């Protein structure tokens, strides 16, 4: 293929420039979501632009959180031009477009390519998925993040791709290697979804994507669309050769399926296709085709997701002691109304403590963030997770609000849980060995962990003086650094569990709960 300057001005070239730009921008945000580089960049911009995130959280919370207002910026071009997001901006769509090209679609025979891009009934599945997710959201369970492409791509980068890069090139992404629970599930899911392009080009975008379904629904009122001039058309079907959306440009255009990639315009040998303002309605299939009974089935699954999830009890009395949420998280039921499982908090966490839960927080909480103190601990002077959270599942709290100083002294610090000793595993408590690393690293002042000196007679009859540690529950903030640094590393002798978390009044431990009185008492005693 020969290149000339004129090619550069073609729509396809302009689109490629946009694709490279937006994909690079996405990768840039993924890379700089790190304490060392963050410096106020809008690392969650793509998530904030995502109209499905704004729409679904508006359903669950009746609010549009801080940056989500930006999603209006994306709704406007969709209402004018259709789903241009899918093929011009969406980094996950661009990935699938590129992979489809790379996997040899370009080398296949013309006929084979045309057949691969015809519309299939299967492509209406994404609308059923969207309906199910919206119904679940109406009930109070936000599940769009399972398949929303921006959430899915951020999550895959955070938990699978970035750690993979760092495994092969140590210190390239992290100072110390990061680990993520269940990374293999997310990693193989990414491989599966990308690999499906071999069987069906743009499989994810055409079949599964709820954001595509949402934008497709919006785009039924778009003012511009691809239009075929039947007088010029010779029915060669060549317009299907590179059709990304499988939107049938060779006949009545399926408006909600078109990705506005403009390939058909350039592939048409007769110049019969153009992008037109308000072309006749009878030449298009305006609205998405969703059989009513399947839509009903989708709604039932959505209701079931909420109802069966809640009925399993993990959000209520049978809550899991390991579901320790990041600092600034809202109360559990509200959390499940806000968290989109994008795992940006997990990406930005400087200690690797944040982990995607699998089933710890129940069916509804798959891939929502929890703390695993074996892998990290919550850094006292850090609120990065709340800074990048696009939906306010983790509120954008300040350090002063987190630590309960200055004007927030009356409320005291935010607590994530409470630490408890397991005396049978603790060296000074049952093994005649000095230790108290837990006391050393306890970051609050006065320390929540204190020790009492005791002199005991060892098994061999000699005396030994040890310090035995205790937790002061009025001071413990549940940061977990004691558990993280405990030398009994397989199952620490001090472990934090969720009880005592301040975000939920039902899960507090002490009746007064205020740190201030405990500190004052202690100071009096010390004097």
């Amino acid at each position, binding site marked *: 293929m020969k290149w000339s300057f004129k090619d550069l001005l073609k729509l396809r070239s302009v689109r490629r420039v946009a694709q490279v730009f937006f994909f690079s921008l996405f990768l840039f945000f993924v890379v700089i979501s*790190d304490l060392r580089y963050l410096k106020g960049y809008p690392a969650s911009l793509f998530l904030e632009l995502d109209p499905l995130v704004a729409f679904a959280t508006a359903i669950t919370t009746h609010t549009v959180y801080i940056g989500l207002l930006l999603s209006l910026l994306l709704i406007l071009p969709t209402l004018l031009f259709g789903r241009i997001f899918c093929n011009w901006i969406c980094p996950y769509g661009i990935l699938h477009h590129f992979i489809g090209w790379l996997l040899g679609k370009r080398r296949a025979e013309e006929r084979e390519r045309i057949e691969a891009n015809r519309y299939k009934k299967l492509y209406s599945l994404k609308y059923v998925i969207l309906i199910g997710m919206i119904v679940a959201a109406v009930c109070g369970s936000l599940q769009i993040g399972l398949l929303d492409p921006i959430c899915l791509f951020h999550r895959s980068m955070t938990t699978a791709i970035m750690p993979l890069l760092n495994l092969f090139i140590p210190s390239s992404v992290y100072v110390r290697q990061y680990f993520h629970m269940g990374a293999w599930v997310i990693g193989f899911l990414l491989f599966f979804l990308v690999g499906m392009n071999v069987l069906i080009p743009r499989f994810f975008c055409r079949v599964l994507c709820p954001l595509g379904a949402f934008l497709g629904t919006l785009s039924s009122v778009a003012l511009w669309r691809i239009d075929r001039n039947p007088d010029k058309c010779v029915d060669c079907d060549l317009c299907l050769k590179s059709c990304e959306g499988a939107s049938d440009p060779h006949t009545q255009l399926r408006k909600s399926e078109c990705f506005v990639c403009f390939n058909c315009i350039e592939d048409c040998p007769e110049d019969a296709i153009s992008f037109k303002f308000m072309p006749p309605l009878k030449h298009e299939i305006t609205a998405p085709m969703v059989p009513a009974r399947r839509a009903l089935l989708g709604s039932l699954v959505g209701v079931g997701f909420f109802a069966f999830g809640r009925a399993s009890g993990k959000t209520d009395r049978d809550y899991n002691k390991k579901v320790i949420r990041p600092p600034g998280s809202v109360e559990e039921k509200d959390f499940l109304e806000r968290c989109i499982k994008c795992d940006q908090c997990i990406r930005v966490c*400087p*200690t690797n403590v944040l982990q995607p839960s699998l089933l710890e927080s129940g069916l509804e909480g798959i891939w929502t963030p929890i703390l695993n103190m074996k892998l990290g601990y919550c*850094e006292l002077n850090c609120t990065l997770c709340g800074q990048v959270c696009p939906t306010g599942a983790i509120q954008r709290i300040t350090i002063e609000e987190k630590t309960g100083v200055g004007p927030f002294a009356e409320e005291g610090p935010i607590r994530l849980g409470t630490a408890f000793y397991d005396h049978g595993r603790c060296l000074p408590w049952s093994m005649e060995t000095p230790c108290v690393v837990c006391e*050393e690293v306890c970051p609050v*002042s006065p320390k929540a962990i204190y020790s009492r000196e005791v002199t005991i007679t060892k098994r061999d009859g000699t005396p030994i003086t040890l310090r035995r540690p205790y937790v002061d529950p009025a001071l413990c903030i549940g940061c977990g650094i004691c558990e993280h640094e405990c030398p009994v590393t397989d199952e620490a002798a001090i472990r934090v569990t969720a009880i005592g978390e301040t975000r939920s009044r039902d899960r507090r431990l002490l009746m007064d709960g205020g740190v201030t009185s405990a500190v004052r008492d202690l100071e009096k005693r010390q004097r």
Partner: protein
Amino acid sequence: MSTNPPPDDTDGRTSRREFILRAGATGALLAGAAVAGRALWQPEHFVPGFQPEKGLQLPSYALALNKTLPSLAIAHGKEHDATVRAAIGALGGMSRFVQKGDIVMIKPNVAFDRPPALAATTHPEALRAVAKLVMEAGAAKVFIADNPINSPAGCFLKSGLRQVASDLNLELLYPETNSFSPLQLEGEVLKHWTFFHEPFKKATKVIGVAPCKDHNLCHASMTMKNWYGLLGGRRNQFHQHIHSIVSDFALMMKPTLVVLDGMNVLMKNGPTGGRLSDVKQMGTVVAGTDMVAVDSYGYTHLLERDLAELTYIHKAHDRGLGNKNWQDTFHKEVQA
């Protein structure tokens, strides 16, 4: 769509050439497998976890003994720069320790993710003052490195040391996966441990710049305890023999110079601190070539406690690693 095989004109017999090629290929694979198998053969078993340990030996960075200049200097002053200068000046100036072309590793204590005012980490102004003197003395390169307890990036950022490193063009080395090698030592308990080797691959001089802090278990963290940050691995086991370990640090590291920053001392709730009321202004900087003497001054005059309880100082003294009776050493006390 299957293609037909080409017409056969050999009457089903194999040509000599084809025989040699095909038999040769099979034979070569067999021979290759045998050679590879023999070369990789492990004929003996071993006991996992009990293989002999090998590790690097750290050279001494200490200067030759000098009887005409003091080995301990105590300077009192109001701010870091002048006080550090006065202390180093009293020892004979930085040119005594660092010559033109030296590559100097400065080890601050950045263990925690804390702002400087809480005195849980080496104060950025103390580091700045020492680093400036080192560069004025003609050092070719200065490394700053530590392996903190909290996450490294956060510690260097919030302690203010990253800013100093970028202001003065010092090379900040994070404790990355590849930065460690095993160290071998004949310590009381420290024998074989993973060590932050990267900064020492090139360094010709080593200077420790430590804050003066209370410590919940070993009573105080000063210049000896500062070397804890050069070790990696399961450091949380150290607490089982903390005094032996801290005295082993004096064996492990023979620094060119140590500086104890006693301008603001963390008097209680150490080693993390957390409130300004834990910190006391003492307006003192102690510098010297004998860590044991420096720390015993720090414990008695800055933390203002009884040296008798500081077991690791006595252990180090008894092992001949330094002199706990700082008054008996050649020292000088100056005002900035």
